[in-house]
Structure formats: C-alpha cells, structure tokens
C-alpha cells in the first residue's frame, strides 16, 4: 500500500495547510525525542508485570493504564519508540540513497545503463511490496533487520523512478546542454548542475520513504512477523492489545495513534519542505 504513495504526493501537491505545519513539526519533534530518550523517560519498567493490576484504564500511576500483563502502557509506548522508528529511518536512508544513485545514473547517463536499471526497477515496482515482504519474512525468517534490508530493495525502485524523472526533466534543459558545450566533464554536470536542481525531490523522497517504511514495518510487526512476542514495537503492541479494546482501549489506541501521528506529521513536513525548496530554488535570495 505504500509504493505508489510517494509519487502521488509529490505529483499532486496541495494548498498551504497553514497551522498544520508547525503543529506537525512539534509532534514530530516530540516523537523524535521519545525515540532517542524514551527508554529513560519511561516512568515504569516497561517489562515488569503486575497481574493484579492487569488491563486497568488510565490512572494517576498509569497514565495510559496497563495491558493484560499489568505492564505500564505509557512506558511501553515510550520504550518502543526507538525500535519502531530506527528501522524506518535506516530503510528510508538506504532506499533514497540507492534511488539517488540509480536515478541520477539512469536519468543522466541514459543508454544501456538506463535500460538495464529501469528494466529491473519496473519489474520490482509492479510487486505489491508489503505482500512480498510478508511472505519473505514470514516464510524465510531473518528477523527485523532482514525485513529492513528487504524493504530497502523493495522501496528503491520507487525512489529511483521519482528521482530519475526529476533528472530527465533537467537533462534536456538548455543550461545542461550549454554545460556540455562548454566542455564540462559529465560527472561535474551531474553533481554540480543537475543534482542541486533535483534536491527538493530527493529530500521529499527521503521523508516519504520514511513514512512508507514506518507503515510497512509496523504492519509486519502487527502481523507478528520479524519481532519476538512481547516486544514494545508499536505495531506489535497494537496487535497484542487489540483484545483489550473494551477493558483498556488506550493499550491499543495509543500505539495506533502514535503510528498515525508520526506518519502524518512527517508526510506534511515532507510536502511543505518540498514546496519550499522548490520555490527557493527558483526564487532569488
């Protein structure tokens, strides 16, 4: 469900969302802090069970209540932030960097190079990525980081396509041709002339790849794949506490909301940043 989202967002744009952007920036910052320092911010030990106080609603000691083992939901959510977000960060960096490399080479150098890269990209692009991920991780195992690796391979085609088409948009512009006729070497034209003009697209791709990876990896752990039971990954918590919706809904809703807020705020920031950089490129200082 993620692979076609990137191009849609980048191609469609939208009106200015006004106050939503700073709000999202604050939310994203809070989540980022939780991801780095969550483990130390947690009021309770996320692993300690208290079966007498299982599945209770929010209270003064347990702000978000407890799960069916009596573990503190807030502490578990904070503890899980790091593991829930690190994988997506790595996957996004990997897919965007590979996409930048392949996209620049395919778009700028063209020829047989482009044909080979794009043939492979098109083949992978048509795959329902998450489904493939589920089957591969589920059948062959390998754990969380194997899943991140597979995800990089599956998301690179999307990034490559976006970055290549941005490069193609520049390649035939007269300023690039003029650089050729001045006699500049090709690698210099690619890095000094084309790359800065596709930078807005690259930045946006990075952020949107992060969102897609967050969704994919959360979905995987939601299905119980790639992580051991009892892990504090948000997707896993959501799945395990789904049955508590009537006793302590927060045990399932908190991780669900956090995934949604993280995905949403990074998307909106990505959209905004893309528009801003794109305008900045064309505006004078």
């Amino acid at each position, binding site marked *: 469900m993620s692979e076609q989202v990137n191009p*849609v*967002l980048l191609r469609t744009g939208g*009106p200015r969302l006004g106050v939503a952007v700073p709000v999202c920036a604050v939310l994203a910052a809070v989540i980022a802090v939780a991801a780095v320092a969550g483990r130390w911010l947690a009021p309770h030990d996320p692993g300690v069970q208290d079966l007498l106080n299982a599945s209770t609603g929010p209270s003064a000691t347990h702000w978000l209540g407890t799960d069916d083992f009596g573990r503190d939901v807030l502490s578990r959510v904070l503890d899980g932030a790091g593991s829930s977000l690190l994988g997506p960060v790595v996957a996004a960096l990997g897919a965007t960097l590979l996409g930048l490399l392949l996209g620049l080479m395919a778009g700028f150098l063209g020829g047989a190079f482009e044909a080979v890269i794009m043939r492979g990209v098109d083949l992978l692009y048509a795959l329902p990525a998450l489904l493939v991920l589920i089957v591969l991780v589920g059948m062959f195992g390998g754990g969380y980081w194997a899943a991140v690796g597979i995800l990089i391979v599956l998301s690179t085609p999307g990034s490559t396509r976006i970055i290549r088409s941005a490069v193609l948009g520049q390649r035939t512009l007269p300023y690039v041709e003029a650089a050729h006729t001045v006699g500049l070497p090709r690698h210099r034209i690619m890095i000094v002339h084309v790359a800065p003009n596709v930078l807005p697209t690259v930045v946006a791709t990075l952020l949107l790849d992060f969102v897609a990876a967050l969704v994919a990896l959360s979905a995987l752990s939601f*299905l119980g794949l790639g992580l051991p039971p009892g892990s504090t990954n948000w997707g896993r918590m959501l799945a395990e506490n789904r049955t508590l919706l009537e006793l302590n809904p927060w045990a399932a809703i908190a991780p*669900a909301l956090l995934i*949604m807020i993280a995905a949403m705020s990074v998307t909106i920031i990505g959209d905004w940043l893309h528009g801003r950089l794109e305008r900045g490129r064309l505006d004078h200082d």
Partner: protein
Amino acid sequence: MSVALVIGRRLLAIAVIMIVVSFLVFAILFATPGSPEQLLLGAGPTTPEALAAVRAKYHLDEPLFTQYLYWLGDAVRLDFGESIQTSQPVVSVLGERLPITLFLAGYATVIALLVGIPSGLLAGLRNGTAGDRLVTFVTTLGISAPSFAIGILLLYVFGITLGWFPIFGAGEGFADRLLHLTLPAVALSATVLAIIARQTRAAALTVESQDYMTFARARGLPRRLLFGRYALRNSSLPVVTSSGLVLASFLTGAVLVEQVFAIPGLGSLTVAAVTNKDVPVVQAVALLAALVVLVLNLLADLAYTVLDPRVRKVVFPQ
C-alpha cells in the same frame, strides 16, 4: 491492428510472466528453512512410511525441473495440493475465502470511487478554499496512516463505543455482510480513496488552468459540458493510468484489515499460512496475487486506451 490482436498479445505477455512467477513461487518450498518433506508433513507423525509417502506424492525424488513440471501441471488444473494445516484441498480453502475478500475489496472500491472522485474534483475546482484544505488534510492522513491503525480506531469508535457495527466476522447473507464489512471496507479504502482524491484534485487543477478550458468558457458552453466533457474526462486520464497499481494495493490492505476485524477472508488465510509455513497455500495465494496485479494493469491500460484518442489511434490504427 485489431482490438482482439492487441488484447491477445497482452494476454500472451501475462502468460509468459505467470510462468516466470510460477517458478519463483514453486521455489518457495525449497527456500523455506527445513527439508521439503518435513514442511509438507507439517505436524503429522514423521514415520519413515509417512516420509516416503510425501516423497512419492510430491515427486521429491525426481530432478528439480521435473518436480516443477509436475507441480505446474497440477497448478494449471487448479490442483495446488492440500493445506498442511487443515488437509483440505487448497483450492477449496481458497474458494471458501475468496468471496468474502472480493466482497470487501469491491465494497472498498465503491467507497473509494464514490467519495474520492467528487471530493478531489471539488477540492481542485475550489482551489485554496477551506474545503480544499480539509480534503487535502484528510487525504494526507489517509495516504500516510496504515489501514490497520485506522481500522483499530474505527473499531473502537463505531464498533465498541457507539455500537453501530458488529466488531468481528463477515456476516451471513447480503445485508448482514454489508453491515459486517462496512468498517473494514472503510479502513481498507482509506489509502486508495486518498490517492484517488489527490490525483483527481491535481488533475482538475491542471485541467482548470488549461487553455482549452478558458476557450470553452469563452464560447459560453454550459457548465454541464465544462464539467463533464472537459474537466472530468481530461482529469480522469492520470487517475486511470495508475488505477491498476492502486487497486492492486487492496491485496496487501486486505491482509491487515482482515486481521484487525477477524474476517475469515484470503488475507487472514495468507497470514495464517505464512505463520504456519503452510507452503501449498502460500504458493496458491502468491500466484493468485500475481495474476490479479497483471490483470488489473491490463484493464487499466485498456481503459486508458479507450479514453484517450491519441493513444487509441496509435494502438488501433484504422
């Protein structure tokens, strides 16, 4: 070139791709950790006789390629063997689950189209208004949030707190099924709805600023024509182009949504099969998924060809 010939060529291409896919799918058995015999026996007794029976049944003593041909020959006749979990024939397991998932996906498609296109068109033609910002905000949420998280929230609000909808199962009979599958269909359609709305909005915006729209207005054409023949038809092109991929995303979405709402469809079957290493079922589901993706893309291309005369005249020159 005749219409039949063009479609025939595409179908042939699909057949070729399906053969490649089938080999990859067949390879799942050997790539899965553990020996094939053990996998195929599942939790059954591992007596030497049972092992020998499995080896004979699945031709495990033949060379790999011969095994594949045996398997392919069966698969073509829709015989994918028996499920390791239930010992039922895989085809009948699929047959039980498929209608539920088809219903769910169809329902979600209808929701996505009926809500996505009008809201996108409205946002595009009323560019920059509060309504446009609302549509953009909500679709951004729909595009970025995973369906299972949306599903949980819907389940809590409309299923548990308000009690308007049943909270699990697929229901019996059309009306009951419609009721049971409403929340899951909404959760499933969220991403696709948002994509369709965003694309429609962008297309409507682009079309709105085209010279041919101004020229149409300058000739005093009625609003009905401006909206239909001009805005809607031209906006639909980019949406149709990507519709194959977009609809194929229901495949993955169904896996998650069925899990949230405990719906006995293909999605939950896939999860159970993968978790239990039920190789024959996984193979059949994977082949089915590949076929669905290919056919949806073919349909999208055909729809595009019919809509755009520039493409039509290239594909079907008179």
